């Protein structure tokens, strides 16, 4: 069994995700957004990039891609579904995760390593991590500013749907350690078997590229696969 990595026109992190999953012992295939049969897969990643050019709103057009029917079905069947960066935006637009991602507070694209504090291990992204761990992971986005209505934020927080927050290198969560203006420094959102994360764990799996802290997140994802009834 293996992971489907969905390619929308304009995606660009798909090869990196496949490389990372395979480096960690998983197996993954690229699937085109017009594919309508994911029966051979037990998990899905929506990778980063600029699906449909990010035109109109990021993720807005992608969520109508034919493959999304299968993504919904797998999500409903309990298969781990992970959206990274642009993939996170698609999951929000598709209603699989709450909230939206707005332009960064400073209206600039941000590409640099940031720190994330592990808030909970009850997610497909963090089950192999420890609460309080601080991870260094590259952020790479223009629309990474997570927001929702006050009610929704409240239910996200009380529901424990925030596995990772932006923090300082020592784990302090405050305005200074918030790179993009995300509400409550939210860097990832996870609801049972569906999760979205704004920074790129697949860019942090080898020390030679700067950090291997993303391994624990993708290993968590790989470990989360269960026998899904497809």
């Amino acid at each position, binding site marked *: 069994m293996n992971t489907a990595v969905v390619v929308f*026109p*304009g995606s*660009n*992190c798909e*090869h*990196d995700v496949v*490389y*990372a999953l395979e480096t960690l012992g998983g197996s993954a295939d690229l699937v*085109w957004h017009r594919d309508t049969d994911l029966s051979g897969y037990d998990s899905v990643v929506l990778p980063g*990039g*600029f699906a*449909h*050019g*990010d*035109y109109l709103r990021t993720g807005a057009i992608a969520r109508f891609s034919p493959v999304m029917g299968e993504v919904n079905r797998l999500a409903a069947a309990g298969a781990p579904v992970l959206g990274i960066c642009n993939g996170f935006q698609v999951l929000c637009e598709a209603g699989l995760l709450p909230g939206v991602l707005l332009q960064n507070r400073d209206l*600039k*694209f*941000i*590409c*640099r390593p940031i720190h994330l504090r592990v808030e909970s291990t009850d997610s497909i992204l963090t089950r192999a991590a420890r609460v309080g761990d601080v991870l260094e992971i*590259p952020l*790479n986005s*223009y629309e990474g500013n997570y927001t929702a209505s006050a009610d929704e934020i409240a239910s996200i927080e009380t529901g424990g749907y925030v596995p990772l927050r932006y923090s300082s290198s020592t784990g302090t969560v405050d305005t200074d350690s918030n790179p993009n203006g995300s509400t409550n420094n939210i860097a990832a959102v996870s609801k049972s078997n569906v999760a979205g994360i704004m920074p*790129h764990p*697949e*860019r942090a799996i*080898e020390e*030679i*590229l700067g950090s291997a802290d993303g391994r624990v997140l993708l290993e968590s994802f790989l470990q989360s696969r269960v026998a899904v009834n497809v």
Partner: protein
Amino acid sequence: MSETMPLHQALGMTDDEYGTVCDLLSRPPTEAELAMYSVMWSEHCSYKSSRAFLGRFPTTAPWVVVGPGENAGVVDLGDGWLAALRIESHNHPSFVEPYQGAATGVGGILRDIFTMGARPIALWDQIRFGPLDDPHNRYLLEGVVAGVAGYGNAVGVPTVGGEVAFEECYAGNPLVNVMCLGIMREEQLVLGTAGTPGTIAILLGSSTGRDGIGGASVLASASFDAGSDTKRPTVQVGDPFEEKKLIEACLELYDRGLVVGVQDLGAAGLSCATSEPAARAGTGMDVNLDAVHVREAGMTAAELLMSESQERMMAFVHPSKVDEVLAVASKWEIDASVVGTVTAGDTLRISHNNQVVAELPAASLSEAAPILRRDSGEPFWLEDLWTNTLEYLQPPDITRCLLEILADPSIGDPSWVYEQYDHQLFLNTVVGPGDNGSLLRIKGTNKALAVSTDGNGRQCYLDPMRGGANLVYEAALNVAMLGAKPMAVVDNLNFGNPEKSEVMWQFIETVEGMSQACENLGIPVVGGNVSFYNETDEADIYPTPIVGVLGLADPAPRSVPRLNRAEAGMALWMFGPKNSRNLAGSSFEKIIKGHVGGRPTGADSTTGKAVIELAVALAQNELVPVMHDISDGGAAVTVSEICIASNVGAHLQYSSWIGLFAEAPHRIIAAVPPEHFTAVRRLAEDLGVPVSELGEFGGDRISFDNPVAGATSVSVDKAAEAWRGAIRSRMSH
């Protein structure tokens, strides 16, 4: 356009050139033909002022697969791998509209690379503006960086390095150059050839509109003056999403062997993409403009032929493969139309509305283009400039000057720029922006590619020949410090108005200086670009060549020298010529004294080569964790940058304060661990490179010590603060 002006003049053609066209055709050209000749013979497309001199560059080496003349240079990396590289300017479009000008510059250089069959894997931008205290220059910087980011990030090619500099001469004419590198397996190489008669031409990508008609070519072939506004409607809008699909579609076509040749549509649009491949193949071509997919109704033949609509490619396909090619295009959701057939003979025949509107020898558009031997002469002011030097009676306050230099936007931290660029995509970036150069691994091999791009307009203004040579040595040294052997050069020659004899002189001198350095180092020039007419209201920019050097590390060192690896207890050594005592053209004189004069120190061919060999050997043998060349700002800045990156202090003895700020070439500052002293000394001695033991790293202050003047120091934190704010503080409100 004045009512009485003949059409050829309105299109920027001289009467002589018009006469040549009439002679060539033995009749007056049609409107469509005139349009084609005018764009193809523009300075931008024909290199008419520069072509006679570019032949000076050395262009051959056993590893050169494709030299200048094709869309990009291609070199052999061994084991079946090839690299394609090219650099382009988008200076004028970026002044008119900074975001779109820079964005379409990125789009254009990418097409040059994937036209060759290579996947573009990285970009570098070299950008220059007037001083940041002028809001307009801030607006230009903001827009250009956003444009590079907006296009490069979205198209999915990382921008892994570049340069940013500020100087008064660029205020009316910013420079925006972009370099691209691609890699491929050798069987994927494709050339811009039309193939044999019967081959079908298929136009792929965006629809053709009126946007950018005469844009890049006309803009880049004329100077700015008060009337520039009238050129404004020619702004082209980039669509990175379309380009991304086009890249993937083309790479699939190459993978499946479905094309005979490919040509991108850049400046001169369809005129170029039909005539050049036919000329290269020695064929003719029938082209049907009615088949071109268009964005606007009612375009004339001339407009269709001149349009510079972005994100288009012409594929040449065997008739039996046409359906497969159209299917690939449809899979990637791009438009495609069959627009032509390659014919025997040499006639390019173009029809529109079922009538032949142009019929001319295909090769005449490129090969019969005029070659000018413009007047050149040493500027009358040069001698005065050389003798205009400063005398220093008193040593300055070294740390105060250092802080001021570190806080200068041309010297300080460029991360405000590069943090807006995705510089990690593809998981190849071992060394990204913010170091000596960039190092990209090739996954699945032990190889890594190093690139550095460098320019120094002020030095080239003071002495174009020395400046040109020094740049090649600097870029090659940056690559060498990453453990890579320099192997090829691309260059972008940004100059003023070639109709002025001193500009042509600067141009010829620069080419000579660069050529000498390339010959000495054995690295060929495999491609480049010339941008003339960089002037505003008669004032030319400094002659500003940009050099990009590609190097190969095979195998790549496991642990690459970096600026941030200095530790307390390591020795601070300098490799290279001692006792540099020349501040001509230096950042010190510019920033502290507001002075530009004197004659910069030139290259030393023996030492220059030896220092590069030493750097490769030190990196390959992992003997020193830190190397950084002495360039802008001198040794004081080089040491400070290491201290800031490593967060450690340094103690340095100097004999003359001038030596701290001099920018003479071929010098490296290194952090040397005690256990490697002997090996490092022996290596330097074997190569004949002088070693100066200047001090050591440690503590939290950067201190400069002299037997007479005593010690002066500044904390690393304070230096870092000055350096970090150089651009950032000026760009945030």
